[in-house]
């Protein structure tokens, strides 16, 4: 039952500024993901919140209480590490019990709580084993179990699923989200995987080189990316980004063909973005259609990813599996309401 507040966080490693000025509030019971490529500072932020790393300036509040000078042990948080960090010399039972043992809880209380958590995560049959005897997925569950043992004020996750195979990852994603909702614990979750961030979070913070690019609900970020970086980072296959010139109410493709923008844009160079799944591909020429040449088709089973170009400008299109592809004479429509425009220099959304 607590919020996490990060206020004007700055972090330098020696002379290198890693985080310039970062502020964020994770509301009570909220699940927020820190999403970004490796080296964007997301893990550093998490470790500073945990108290494992010192900040250069700024403040951390957990449950309204300033914890900045406190050691990790006094912050009442729990953390799940990428490599799980299970204690190799302790049994699973003792791994779970460790936090309570430090707090000198009674043996009966510890046993009862371990049983409870173990049954919640369906790891009762593993309690007597040691971490080395467990599979990756089982270790992951134990790491989760250790985190919820003490009913902490906040969960911190540091890429907890990246060591699992794809199938298990999908499964654990759902499980972590369900658990978090059931227990109602405030969560800060670090990941570089956009699918994890999109599917699990209440809100996503997209980070780039220590700066916040955008904060928003998953669909907000998908539908209204605040910058070129976000547009490029979210979505798979990635959004088509085309450098164009503006001309009155139109944008002009590199080939010279005009496309209606449906709004007024600053004159000069801008970047046009459109998601592959929003493009209409057909064999019929409409009023706004552009000629499209297909060069390669990737069959995914559920859909086709079509690679091709409009008069030399590369464009990727997602096409439903059950429909037949047009042949030589193909045309694409770029629907007005799905067009994104970005300032070519600052990358900001227009």
């Amino acid at each position, binding site marked *: 039952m607590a919020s996490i507040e990060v206020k004007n966080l700055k972090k330098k490693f020696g002379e290198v500024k890693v985080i310039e000025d970062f502020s964020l509030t994770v509301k009570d019971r909220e699940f927020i993901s820190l999403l970004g490529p490796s080296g964007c500072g997301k893990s550093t932020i998490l470790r500073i919140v945990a*108290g494992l790393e010192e900040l250069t300036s700024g403040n951390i509040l957990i449950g309204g209480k300033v914890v900045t000078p406190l050691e990790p042990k006094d912050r009442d948080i*729990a953390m799940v590490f990428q490599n799980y960090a299970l204690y*190799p010399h302790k049994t699973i039972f003792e791994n779970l019990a460790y936090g309570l043992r430090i707090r000198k809880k009674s043996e009966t209380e510890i046993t009862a709580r371990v049983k409870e958590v173990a049954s919640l995560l369906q790891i009762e049959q593993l309690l007597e084993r040691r971490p080395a005897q467990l599979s990756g997925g089982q270790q992951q569950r134990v790491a989760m179990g250790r985190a919820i043992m003490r009913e902490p004020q906040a969960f911190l996750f540091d890429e907890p699923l990246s060591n699992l195979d794809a199938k298990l990852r999908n499964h654990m994603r759902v499980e972590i989200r369900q658990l978090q909702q059931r227990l109602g614990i405030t969560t800060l979750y670090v990941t570089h995987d956009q699918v994890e961030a999109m599917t699990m979070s209440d809100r996503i913070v997209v980070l780039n080189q220590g700066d916040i690019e955008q904060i928003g609900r998953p669909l907000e970020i998908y539908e209204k990316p605040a910058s070129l970086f976000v547009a490029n980072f979210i979505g798979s296959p990635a959004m088509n980004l085309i450098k164009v010139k503006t001309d009155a109410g139109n944008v002009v493709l590199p080939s010279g063909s005009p496309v209606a923008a449906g709004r007024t844009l600053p004159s000069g160079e801008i970047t046009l973005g459109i998601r592959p799944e929003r493009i209409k591909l057909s064999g019929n020429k409409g009023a706004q259609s552009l000629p499209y040449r297909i060069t390669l088709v990737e069959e995914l089973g559920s859909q086709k990813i079509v690679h091709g170009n409009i008069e030399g400008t590369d464009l990727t299109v997602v096409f439903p599996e059950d429909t037949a592809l047009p042949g030589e004479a193909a045309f694409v429509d770029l629907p007005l309401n799905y067009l994104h425009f970005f300032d070519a220099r600052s990358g900001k959304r227009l």
Partner: protein
Amino acid sequence: MSPKSRLYWIVCYGILALYGAFTLLPILYLAVSSFKTQQQIYDGIAATFWFTPTLDSYRFIFETKPILQMLTNTLIVSVGSTVFSLFFGTIAAYGLARYNFRGRDDLAFYILSIRMFPPIVAALPIFMIFNGLNLLDTKTGLIIAYTTFNLPFVVWMMTGFIKAVPVQLEEAAMVDGQSHLGAIWDILVPVLRPSIFAVAIFCIIFSWNEFLFALILTKSQAKTLPVAIPEFITWTEVGWNYVAAAGMVLVAPVLVFSFLAQRYMVRGMSMGAIKD
């Protein structure tokens, strides 16, 4: 590796057998000689391995020389120097392994290079300094002298071993509610126990076998067994059976010990050179 031809195996077994004999023969020679009488030593090559064994040589050296006291000295100095070096060395290794600070690599290299300096360079001045401090012929003095090679060794080895343990283990314990030192003691130390054991074995063996410092720095009270070995050799060399017996007393514990702890030793040795 690929399947090998018959010729390969003939050469392989042949050379291993030859080298194995070369390796074992001197040790056997030491062992059998220690169970002979002075007369039997001269009985010629045919009687090298064919004789009536006797414990006379052992009885003689224990009766005429303070072997037991020297053995105790060797043990006390070895264990003392090992414990001392392990304690401070492991703490220092933690600082080197877990913190990134300017000049760290240079510092690690300085510590390692001490281990590689010629012992004679340290031995001369240490003799003069101990002479002034009344530390000559004391076990304390010898323990301090042995620290010159054991402490750098411990720091070097333990730094590697600690680096191999993910720092997240300590961090998880700290998040679980443990203090920094508590996390080191509760989590890191138990995980490192086999490594500490391996390093300790090496320190004990280095000290047990040490000769130069003991030769220079001790006379009688703190004299260790290796120094006593040359004293058994008179210029006529008639006491070979006694030397052999003393030699056996010195090396048998190491051999037994090293066979028992072989797993740890091979691991430790290989780790020292091949760090990943």
